[in-house]
């Protein structure tokens, strides 16, 4: 069953078609990689689907519901979440607070003015569990602005994960992180999403990461989809090789 499907999605920036009539689909419990050179339209596509930008044309169907005109808030309620390429966290709040916030909003608890946040044990227990999953429990009380880049990247994903989405968009989850740290981060992320049958669409530039972790690869170029298929097929695709991978070794 297709969890997400876009039909003829278009986004203009002035005269440029950043996203040019894209038909993009994600199945349930699937991990796919979204690749393409800079300017190919990957982040714009994610921005449009997640609601940061409005589509100029086309439709977005999520879980059989047309979400094209829905607000960010509604899309999150429907089950779409995302992390950001340039880490976007609440730097003056603790690591634990960052994750707890997602859990509070998920339960519509942030509307409560008159109860103390500390008293809601269930939320904090869950937040701590999420931190354990991501290996961040040791940093629970530190401010998000004070932990390492790799930890911030993981926290960014954890905050999105804590919303318990059905579809998680990850924008370059390993960028800015040393090569040695990339694999552990991807291991953690993919084991979590696979175990809970969350679909993940990961924008990545590092081809090792792409080929090692994804079930399916979607390659974009010039705002349109160039190729779409399992890793082996993509590896052999001539256009992809020419535009993205360079000559075969």
């Amino acid at each position, binding site marked *: 069953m297709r969890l997400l499907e876009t039909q003829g999605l278009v986004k203009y920036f002035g005269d440029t078609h950043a996203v040019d009539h894209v038909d993009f689909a994600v199945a349930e419990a699937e991990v796919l990689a979204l690749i393409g050179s800079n300017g190919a339209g990957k982040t714009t596509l994610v921005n449009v689907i997640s609601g*940061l930008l409005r589509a100029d044309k086309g439709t977005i169907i999520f879980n059989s519901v047309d979400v094209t005109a829905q607000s960010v808030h509604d899309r999150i*309620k429907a089950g779409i979440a995302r992390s950001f390429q340039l880490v*976007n966290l609440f730097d*003056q709040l603790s690591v634990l607070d960052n994750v707890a916030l997602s859990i509070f909003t998920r339960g519509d608890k*942030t509307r409560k003015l*008159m109860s103390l946040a500390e008293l809601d044990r269930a939320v904090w227990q869950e937040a*701590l569990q999420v931190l354990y999953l991501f290996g961040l429990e040791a940093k629970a*009380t530190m401010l998000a602005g004070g932990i390492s880049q790799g930890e911030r990247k993981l926290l960014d994903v954890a*905050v999105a994960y804590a919303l318990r989405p059905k579809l998680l968009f990850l924008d370059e989850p390993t960028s800015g992180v040393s090569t040695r740290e990339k694999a552990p981060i991807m291991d953690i992320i993919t084991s979590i999403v696979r175990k809970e049958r969350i679909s993940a669409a990961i924008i990545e530039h590092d081809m090792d990461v792409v080929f090692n972790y994804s079930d399916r690869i979607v390659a974009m170029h010039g705002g349109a989809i160039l190729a779409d298929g399992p890793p082996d097929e993509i590896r052999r695709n001539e256009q992809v090789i020419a535009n993205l991978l360079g000559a075969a070794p």
Partner: protein
Amino acid sequence: MSTLAVALETRSPARVFAWAIPIALALLVLPLVIDQYQTILLSYGLVMGIAALGFNLLLGYTGLLSFGHSAYFGVGAYVVALMVKYLGVASMELFLIGAIIGSVIVTALFGFVCVRYTRIFFGILTLALSQVLWSLAFKFFWVTGGTDGLRVPTPTLLGAVSGKGDKIAFLAGPYYYYVLVLFFGCVALMWVIVNSPFGKALQAIRDNETRAEFVGIQVWHYRWVAFLVSGVFTGLAGALWVPLNGLTTPEVLYWPFSGELVFMTVLGGFRSFAGPIVGAIVFNYLKTYAVGFTVYWQLLMGTVLVILVLSLPTGIVGSAGRLLARWKRAR
């Protein structure tokens, strides 16, 4: 899980009780040791503390710097004065209810316009709207008394304690305790609000508006509610202030008064809970004694503000906290 216990314990807001209780006791007992003039002066400080507390919900916790909070203080004050003038009311409780209703209406309206914007647009919009109110207080002088303002006699507290008779004794006695009780109430209420899930959401919006949106927080709504709460606290302060002053004039709606609120909050430290309160009380004393020195005390205030922002951005409370931490480490 013991980690959870540790995590919650070290950041528990309940630790604030260590400071709060001795100070509360001191405030309760103070009138017995200081003279009447000083007690009334302190009342002014407590009232401004409530106003600053409200103001800082927006600045310190939501990241919105308002230059027009005099509007809500003034609304509170004028509602009381108009209730006296047109309805002959003398009950303090009715005054408070009226002030709250008036503040809710004005902040809901102003907030609706202002919170769509941030930073400089927000700042100047709030300033501009407060100037509109100020100019209305002037122009409709047959209602508001114009520059002469409106007199407000001492009110009746709880239907029982009358303000007639020795005014100074009333203000230094029953009225002080009335203000004090409301002060404790407001502090407690604000403390709960900033430590609630709602308060956390506000801080998230302050730190990263985009991420807050993507965690499911409807930023505009939350800002609007924060604006509302903030304005009502300040309006309440305005209502409490009028009987102390005996009179309300358009001065209380004019922009320098908003400037005082900004100043006292920055002085005390806008990144802490108690900072605005400390700043308000300290400022109150500074103003009372400085005005005796010089009429150019806005110059003084502006200079100190610039110095504060340049070198002591965390204000009194923040700097004291840092000194305390350093002293503890040195032992």
